[in-house]
C-alpha cells in the first residue's frame, strides 16, 4: 500500500504512465482486461492500473470502469485510486481481472477547505471537522443541517421542533453569547450566506466545520461561533453522468400524549365548579319535551369515546422527493446541472414544506493561466400552515373531549368556538377550535433565492496566483396571512382580514486573494495568502393589510377586496463591512507545521469608537509519525499533535444600537391619527464586538494502517465583552440596553473515532463515533450583578422569570420552586373550631398562594427555612444544556447490500415542559387535561404527585415540570441493495440501487412530552423549552437511485 501521496503526485503519475504506455513494447505479453468497481459495485473511472516494479507501464480505467493493459503473464498489477486502498493482484496468465476497490480510511490526503483556500488534511494545524456527501445523502431532510445532527464532535444541533422546514439551533463548542446570535457563520463556496437550508442535499460535496479560533480566525469578526464551510459539487472530466434519485416517504406522529377520558373530564369539571357545570354534562330525569336526558349520570360517560383531538389534528402523510443531476466535462470545461424537489406534507393538518432547487455550475480553463468558475443557484421554498405554536397544540390537548347535554360532539368539532364557552360570561376568545383554525387560517411563506457566484483565478507566475470572486445574492420572501371568516381572529376583529409581507434581502460581496506557494530546498513549504473583502447587505420590507372582506376565497391575491386597508409599512436597512486578512503557512519536511492568520474587520453596526476589530491567531503542529524514530513503529500510521490559539469576534446584533434615535409611532388625537416621535432606545456609544479566544490542543492518531483513526481535541474558549441586552432598572425609562458585558467560558473535550472493523471483498464494516463533553460557565456579568433573569413569557398569564444565569454556573438554568409533594391531612392539626392548622415544621404556602394551606395543595421546598413559602424559595431546578452528546454510525457493505444506522444521543439536559404545565392546570373551565390529572389529589385519593383541582398556584414554574431530556435516538437507518450491473447494462443503466430508510424509528427517553429534542424559544438563555412544539414524525422512505 502506498501512502501520503498527494493528489497532484498521483495525477502526475497517471499522466506519465499514460504517455509512456503508448511507447511501451511487447515482450511475452498478454492483454489483461477487466472492470474496476467500488465497494458498491459501481464502476470506478480513472483508476490507475500499473504494472508493479515497472511504473512506466500503466493505463487508467474508462468511463465504464474498464481497462485493458499489456503485461508479462507473471506480472502483478497495482490498482490505485484516490481515497481507495491500493490493491495488488497477480495476473497469473489470466486475461480477465475484475477488481473491487475498497475505501481507504486513511483520509489524510483529503483536501480540506479552510477559508479562502484549501489544505491537505495532513497539513492542518487547527481543529477542522469534515463531513462528506456520503454521510448526508441518505437523509431525506428539508435542510442538510438536520442530517448533520449527531455526526460532528463539538457541534450540537437541535431542531426547534418537528415543523416541516423548521429551523435548527447549531451550537459549535457551546453557547458563547448571551443575547447575540450564537449561530455559526455559514460560508458556501467561499461566500457568507444566512443559512444553508436553501441547498439541496444532493448538491453538497463536503461540509467542513472550523471549530477552534486558530482555524476560524480568517473570518475574524463573524467567526466566534465557529464556521461551517460548504463546498458544492462541481463537474468532472469524463463522460456525462446522469443521476436520478427518487423516493417516497410516509410520515406519522411518533408519539401521542394521553389526555383524560370523557368520563374523567366530566368528573373534573363538576368537581371544579359544581354550580356552573353541575347540570352541563348530565341530569337525571327528562327534558322539557319529556325525553330522558342523554346522560343521566357521570357514569354514562364511561362508555363515551368522545373526540380524540390529537386524532383529528394529526394525520399520516405521503410525500415525494426527486433529485436529478448531470455532471460531466473535459480537461478544460467542467459542468454540472441539477434539479431537486423535496416535499414534506406535515403530520399536523394543513401544514407542509416544499423545496425546489436548481443549480448550474461551470468551470472553464480559458488559457493556461486563467480559469473562470460560475455558479447559479435558485431555490424556492414554500412553507404552509399555522403550525402548532402560540397555543394551537395546547388547544389540541385541552379542547373539550365531549359536548355534554347542550352541545353535540359534532357541533363542538365544527364550531370555531365551543358553543358552551360562548354562552358564558368569562368567554375567552383566545381559546378556539384548533382543527377549525388549521382549516380557516392560511399562512404561506414563500422564499425565492437567487445566488450567483463567479470567480477568476489567474496563475500569475509558477508560485503566485490571484483569485477574485464575487457573489450576488437576493432573497425574496412573501409571507401571506389570511384569517378566514370562521377563524378566531376574524371573529375577534369582526370579519376576515389578511396581510401580505414582502421582504427583499440583498447582499453582494467581493474578495480578492493573492496566494504565494513555494517549496524551497525540498523541505521548506511556504504558503502565504493576502486578501481583501468588501460586503454589503440590505433588507427592504413592505407590509399591506386589509380587513372587511366580503368573501374569503381570493384571500391574499387581492387584498383590495378588503373594504378597509388597515396597515401599510415599509422599511429599509443597510450595513457594510470591509476586511483585510492574511495567512501564512509554513511546513518543514511535513514534520513541523506553523500557521498564522490575522484579520481586520470594519463594520457599520458598531459605534464610531469601535468600527474596527483585529483578530490574530497562531497554530503549530508536529507530525510525530514522520520522525525517523517512528519508522519502526509499524502500527502507528499517523500521529500528530496540534496546538492553536486565536481570537475571533461576533458582530451579529441589530443595526443602529449605538445611535440616539426617535422612532415614529401612531397617536390618535381626536379622530385624526398622527405620527409622533418617541425615543427609541438607550443608545450605547461604546458598543463593540464580542470577542472570543480559544486555546486548542489536539491529537490525531492513526493506527493499523489507518483502520483506526482517532481525533481528540481539548479546548478552552473564553468569550468576553458579551453582546448583551443588559437588564436595566425600569426607572431608567427602559428595560434593557445593549452592552458589552461579562464573560463566558466553554471548556470541552471532543473525540472522533473511525474504525474499519472488518474489510474484505464482500464484507465491510466501519464505525464512526463522536462524543463531546462541554462545560459552560458564565464567568461574570455587570459589576455588582451575579445573576441575570429571563422570562419565557410563553403565555400572557405566565409572567414570572423562569430562567436564571448565575455567575459561576452554566447558562440555561431553569428557575422556580422545588416540588415537594402534596399537602396531606397528616400535615395538619385540627383546631378547636374545626379548622386545620399546619403542623410545626411544615412549610406554609398560604401567603404565597393567597389562600390558606389545605390538603391537596402543591407543596414547595422551603429552601431558606423560614417556615413560609415566598419568592426567596426559588432555585435552579434544571438546565437545558447537555453534559455530553454525540452520535455513532455503523456502516456495513455485504455483497450488494449496504446498511447503515445512526444513533444520536444527548445526556444531562433537562426540558422545561411548558406544554404539560399548561395542560395540567386543572381548575380551568371546560378544558381537558393530560391523563395524569385523573390521578389528582382528592379527599379519597391521597396523591403525592398531582395536586387537587384547585390546589396549585396558576402559571408558576416548579420542578414537577422540569424533566430529564436525555435521549438516545435511532435517527436514521438505511438498507440498500445495488443491482448487478450485468443486468443493468441491457437497459443502459450503469447503476441502480434501491433502498429503504427509516428516520426517527425510536427514541429512548424519560421525557413525557412529544420529543425531548426541542427548543421552541431558540434562545441562548432559555434552552430546552417545550411550548406547543410540533411533534416529530417517524418517516419511512422508499427510494431508488439510478445512474446512466
Amino acid at each position, binding site marked *: 500500500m502506498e501512502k501520503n501521496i498527494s493528489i497532484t503526485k498521483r495525477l502526475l503519475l497517471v499522466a506519465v504512465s499514460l504517455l509512456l504506455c503508448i511507447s511501451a513494447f511487447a515482450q511475452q505479453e498478454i492483454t489483461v482486461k477487466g472492470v474496476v468497481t467500488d465497494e458498491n459495485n459501481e464502476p470506478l473511472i480513472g483508476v490507475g492500473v500499473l504494472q508493479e516494479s515497472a511504473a512506466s507501464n500503466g493505463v487508467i480505467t474508462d468511463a465504464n470502469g474498464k481497462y485493458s493493459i499489456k503485461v508479462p503473464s507473471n506480472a502483478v498489477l497495482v490498482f490505485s485510486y484516490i481515497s481507495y486502498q491500493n490493491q495488488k493482484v497477480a495476473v497469473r496468465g489470466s486475461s480477465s481481472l475484475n477488481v473491487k476497490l475498497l475505501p481507504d480510511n486513511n483520509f489524510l490526503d483529503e483536501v480540506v477547505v479552510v477559508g479562502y483556500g484549501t489544505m491537505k488534511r495532513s497539513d492542518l494545524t487547527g481543529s477542522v471537522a469534515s463531513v462528506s456527501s456520503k454521510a448526508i445523502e441518505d437523509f431525506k431532510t428539508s435542510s442538510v443541517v438536520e442530517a448533520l445532527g449527531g455526526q460532528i464532535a463539538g457541534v450540537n444541533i437541535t431542531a426547534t421542533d418537528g415543523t416541516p422546514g423548521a429551523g435548527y439551533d447549531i451550537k459549535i463548542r457551546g453557547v458563547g453569547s448571551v443575547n447575540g446570535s450564537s449561530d455559526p457563520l455559514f460560508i458556501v463556496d467561499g461566500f457568507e450566506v444566512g443559512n444553508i437550508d436553501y441547498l439541496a442535499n444532493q448538491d453538497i460535496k463536503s461540509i467542513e466545520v472550523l471549530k477552534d479560533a486558530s482555524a476560524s480566525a480568517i473570518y475574524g469578526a463573524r467567526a466566534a461561533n465557529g464556521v461551517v464551510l460548504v463546498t458544492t459539487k462541481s463537474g468532472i472530466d469524463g463522460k456525462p453522468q446522469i443521476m436520478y434519485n427518487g423516493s417516497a416517504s410516509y410520515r406519522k406522529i411518533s408519539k401521542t400524549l394521553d389526555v383524560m377520558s370523557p368520563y374523567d373530564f366530566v368528573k373534573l369539571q363538576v368537581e371544579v365548579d359544581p354550580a356552573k357545570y353541575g347540570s352541563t354534562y348530565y341530569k337525571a330525569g327528562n327534558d322539557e319535551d319529556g325525553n330522558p336526558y342523554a346522560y343521566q349520570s357521570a357514569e354514562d360517560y364511561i362508555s363515551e369515546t368522545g373526540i380524540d383531538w390529537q386524532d383529528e389534528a394529526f394525520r399520516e402523510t405521503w410525500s415525494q422527493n426527486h433529485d436529478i443531476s448531470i455532471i460531466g466535462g473535459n480537461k478544460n470545461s467542467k459542468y454540472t446541472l441539477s434539479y431537486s424537489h423535496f416535499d414534506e406534507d406535515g403530520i399536523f393538518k394543513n401544514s407542509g414544506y416544499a423545496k425546489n432547487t436548481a443549480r448550474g455550475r461551470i468551470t472553464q480553463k480559458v488559457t493556461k493561466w486563467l480559469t473562470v468558475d460560475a455558479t447559479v443557484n435558485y431555490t424556492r421554498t414554500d412553507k404552509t400552515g399555522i403550525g402548532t405554536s402560540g397555543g394551537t397544540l395546547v388547544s389540541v390537548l385541552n379542547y373539550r373531549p365531549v359536548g355534554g347535554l347542550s352541545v353535540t360532539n359534532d357541533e363542538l368539532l365544527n364550531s370555531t368556538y365551543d358553543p358552551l364557552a360562548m354562552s358564558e360570561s368569562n368567554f375567552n376568545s383566545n381559546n378556539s377550535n384548533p382543527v377549525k383554525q388549521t382549516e380557516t387560517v392560511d399562512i404561506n411563506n414563500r422564499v425565492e433565492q437567487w445566488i450567483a457566484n463567479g470567480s477568476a483565478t489567474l496563475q500569475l507566475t509558477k508560485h503566485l496566483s490571484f483569485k477574485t470572486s464575487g457573489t450576488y445574492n437576493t432573497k425574496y420572501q412573501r409571507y401571506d396571512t389570511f384569517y378566514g371568516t370562521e377563524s378566531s381572529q376574524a371573529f375577534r376583529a369582526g370579519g376576515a382580514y389578511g396581510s401580505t409581507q414582502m421582504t427583499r434581502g440583498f447582499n453582494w460581496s467581493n474578495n480578492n486573494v493573492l496566494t504565494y506557494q513555494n517549496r524551497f530546498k525540498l523541505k521548506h513549504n511556504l504558503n502565504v495568502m493576502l486578501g481583501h473583502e468588501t460586503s454589503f447587505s440590505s433588507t427592504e420590507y413592505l407590509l399591506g393589510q386589509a380587513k372587511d372582506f366580503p368573501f374569503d376565497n381570493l384571500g391574499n391575491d387581492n387584498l383590495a377586496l378588503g373594504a378597509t386597508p388597515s396597515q401599510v409599512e415599509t422599511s429599509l436597512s443597510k450595513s457594510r463591512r470591509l476586511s483585510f486578512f492574511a495567512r501564512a503557512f509554513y511546513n518543514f519536511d511535513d514534520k513541523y507545521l506553523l500557521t498564522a492568520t490575522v484579520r481586520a474587520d470594519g463594520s457599520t453596526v458598531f459605534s464610531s469608537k469601535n468600527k474596527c476589530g483585529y483578530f490574530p491567531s497562531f497554530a503549530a503542529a508536529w507530525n510525530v509519525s514522520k520522525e525517523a524514530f517512528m519508522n519502526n513503529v509499524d502500527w502507528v500510521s499517523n500521529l500528530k499533535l496540534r496546538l492553536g490559539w486565536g481570537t475571533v469576534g461576533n458582530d451579529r446584533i441589530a443595526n*443602529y444600537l449605538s445611535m440616539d434615535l426617535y422612532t415614529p409611532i401612531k397617536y390618535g388625537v381626536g379622530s385624526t391619527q398622527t405620527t*409622533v416621535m418617541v425615543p427609541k432606545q438607550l443608545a450605547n456609544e461604546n458598543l463593540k464586538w464580542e470577542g472570543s479566544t480559544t486555546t486548542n490542543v489536539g491529537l490525531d492518531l492513526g493506527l493499523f494502517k489507518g483502520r483506526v483513526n482517532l481525533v481528540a481535541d481539548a479546548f478552552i474558549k473564553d468569550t468576553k465583552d458579551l453582546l448583551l441586552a443588559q437588564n436595566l432598572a425600569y426607572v431608567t425609562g427602559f428595560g434593557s440596553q445593549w452592552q458589552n458585558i461579562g464573560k463566558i467560558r466553554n471548556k470541552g473535550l471532543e473525540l472522533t473515532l473511525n474504525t474499519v472493523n472488518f474489510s474484505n471483498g464482500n464484507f465491510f464494516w466501519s464505525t464512526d463515533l463522536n462524543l463531546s463533553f462541554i462545560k459552560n460557565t458564565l464567568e461574570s456579568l455587570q459589576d455588582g450583578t451575579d445573576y441575570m433573569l429571563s422570562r419565557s413569557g410563553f403565555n400572557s398569564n405566565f409572567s414570572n422569570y423562569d430562567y436564571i444565569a448565575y455567575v459561576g454556573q452554566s447558562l440555561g438554568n431553569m428557575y422556580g420552586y422545588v416540588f415537594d409533594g402534596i399537602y396531606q391531612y397528616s400535615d395538619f392539626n385540627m383546631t378547636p373550631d374545626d379548622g386545620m392548622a399546619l403542623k410545626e415544621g411544615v412549610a406554609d404556602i398560604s401567603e404565597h398562594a393567597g389562600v390558606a394551606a389545605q390538603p391537596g395543595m402543591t407543596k414547595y421546598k422551603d429552601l431558606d427555612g423560614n417556615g413560609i413559602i415566598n419568592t426567596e424559595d426559588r432555585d435552579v431546578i434544571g438546565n437545558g444544556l447537555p453534559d455530553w452528546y454525540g452520535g455513532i454510525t455503523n456502516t456495513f457493505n455485504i455483497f450488494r447490500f449496504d446498511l447503515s444506522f445512526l444513533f444520536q444521543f444527548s445526556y444531562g439536559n433537562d426540558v422545561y415542559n411548558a406544554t404539560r404545565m399548561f395542560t395540567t392546570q386543572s381548575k380551568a373551565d371546560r378544558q381537558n387535561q393530560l391523563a395524569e390529572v385523573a390521578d389528582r389529589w382528592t379527599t379519597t385519593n391521597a396523591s403525592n404527585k398531582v395536586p387537587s383541582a384547585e390546589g396549585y398556584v396558576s402559571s408558576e414554574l416548579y420542578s414537577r415540570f422540569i424533566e430529564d431530556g436525555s435521549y438516545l435516538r435511532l435517527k436514521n437507518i438505511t438498507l440498500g441493495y445495488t443491482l448487478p450491473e450485468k443486468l443493468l447494462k441491457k437497459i443502459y443503466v450503469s447503476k441502480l440501487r434501491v433502498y429503504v430508510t427509516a428516520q426517527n424509528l425510536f427514541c429512548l427517553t424519560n421525557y413525557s412530552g412529544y420529543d425531548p429534542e426541542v427548543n421552541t424559544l431558540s434562545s441562548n438563555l432559555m434552552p430546552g423549552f417545550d411550548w406547543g412544539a410540533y411533534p416529530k414524525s417517524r418517516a419511512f422512505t422508499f427510494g431508488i437511485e439510478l445512474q446512466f
Partner: protein
Amino acid sequence: MPVSCSLDETSYTEMEKNSYLNDAGEAETVLLGVYENLTQDGLYSYHLSLYFTLSTDLAKVEGTSITNFRNVPNNAYTSTETEVQTTWADLYNAIYDANDFLERVSGAYDNYSESDKKLAAVYIAEARALRGLFYFELVRWFGNVALITSTEQSKQLPETFTQATPVQVYEFIEKDLKYAVDNLPYAKDDATRSSNSYRFSKGGALGLLTKVYATWAGYPVKDESKWQAAAETAKVLVESGKHSLLSNYEQLWKNTCNNVWDPSESLIEVSFYSPSITGQNDSDASGRIGKWNGVSTGEGTISSGRSAGNWKVVPTFALNWENHQNDKRFALSIADYKYVKATGKTALATATIGGVKTDLTLEMALANPDYRKGFNGTLSPAKWDIAKYVTDANVLTDANLSNVNWYILRYSDVLLLYAEAMNEWKGGPTTEAYEAVNMVRRRGFGLPVNSASTLSDLPEGLSYEAFRTAVRKERTYELAFEGHRRQDLVRWGIYYDTIQNTYASQTDWNEDAQNYYLCAGYTIKGKNELLPIPQREMDMMKQFKQNPLW
C-alpha cells in the same frame, strides 16, 4: 490598516436625535410622543384607568374567582405581578420621554424663530405638566419612588438608585405644575397653538395641582397644610370663569365616546383613536374603555364586537344612592341591562309576577328584596355604553379595544375638591364650598347650575363632619366608576375599612351578594393602599425598600 473609510451608520427609517427638533413643528411631534404615553396599557388604556382602580365600595371585578385578570382587582397578587411592573415601566418611560423632550428642545430653542420660540415655550410647559402627572401617578400608587429628573440619570448603575421621600416627589410635581400654570394659556384664550385638543392648558394644570395638594394632604403623607394650597389653587381656576359644567350630564359620555373635545368641562382627557386595528396590532393608540368597563355585550352583538364588561357595580352602591329618583346621574351611571345577540338590549333578570314573566329593573329590585338575586354581580357601569353612545364614525371593531376616550380630570372633580379643601382648611363649610358642591348637584339633577334648588342643594348649616360626608358621597355620585374612588379612599385613609364594611353590608342587598365581593378577603390594612415596587426592580436596585407588608 486603512479601514476608516465610510463605515458610518445611517438610519433610513428613524430620525437621529441630533438632527431633529429643528423647528417647533418637529418639536411638536416629539411632544406628542410624550402625550402618547397616556395611551399605554400601563397608563390610561388599561391599568390606571380600569384595572388598578377597580376594587372599591362602588365596583368590583366580574366573577367569583381570582383566576386570570381577576387577581389584581381582588388584591390577590404579589410583587411579581406583570401589570404592576408594566405600569411602573410605562410611567418611567413616559418620564424619560418628557425629560428627553425638555432637554432636546432647550438645546434647540436658541435657533428657533420668534414665533417658534413662543410655541416651544408652551410645549415646554406642557411637557412639565405631563411629567407632573406621571410623577403624581407614581407617587400615589407606588409611594416611594426614584426621582429621575434628567436622561443622564439613565446611565447610572441599578444599585445606585435611591428612593425619594414622597414629600420630595410632591415638591417636584408642585414645581412642574406651577411652571405649567404660569406658562400655559387657558384653553379658551389659546392664541399660540393651532389646536389644543386633548392637550394641557392652564385650567388642566390648575386642576391637577389642586388634586395633587388634596392628595398630599391625605394619607400617607398627611401634610394638612396643603388643604389651604388646594383650596387656593382651585379658587384661581373656579374664579377664572374659563371653565364650566356642561348643562347635560349625559353629554359628557356622548362626547368622550365620540372623540368630541369640549374643554369647558374636560380639563385633562386621554384621546384614544385608531382606525386600523384588527385585533393584531396592539401598538395602535386604542384603549379598553367601554370594553373592559362597559355594558356587558355578547360576542358579535354589536358592530364593535363584544364588551367583556369586567367592571361590575356593587349593588349596595345603588341601594344607598340617596335621592336617586331625582338624580339623573343614577340611571346614566348604572346599567340594569345588557346586550344579547338574539334580543339586543335585554334585562339582567326576570321574575314571574302575577303569572307573567316580567323583565326586572333595578328600581324594582331596590323596592323588593325578592327581585335582587339576578343583580348580584351583573350590574354594569353605564357611562361608556358603546352600543348606546358610540356612533358609526368612531366604531372600532375589536373584542377588547375601543376608540372611547378617558377623562383624567373633569371640572366637576375640581369643584368637589374645592369644596372638600375649603371645609378641611376652614374646619367647616364656607359659602364657596356649598356653592361648588351644589353646582355639581344641580347639573346632576338636570337643573340650572347657577340657581339654588331645594331639590338638589345640600341642606344649609352642615357641620364640618356632615359636610365632609356629603362631599365624599357626592364624589361617588358625580364621579362613579371614573377611576377616582380608590385613590380617594386611600387619601382619606379609609380604603381597608371601606372594603370590609362594603363586604359586611352586602347582606343588605341579599344574602348571596357577599359571594360576589371577593376582594375583602385579600385586602390587608396598611398594604393595599400602595402597589408593591415590582420585584424585578427590587432585585436590581439594592438600595430600594419594598412598600409595607409586600
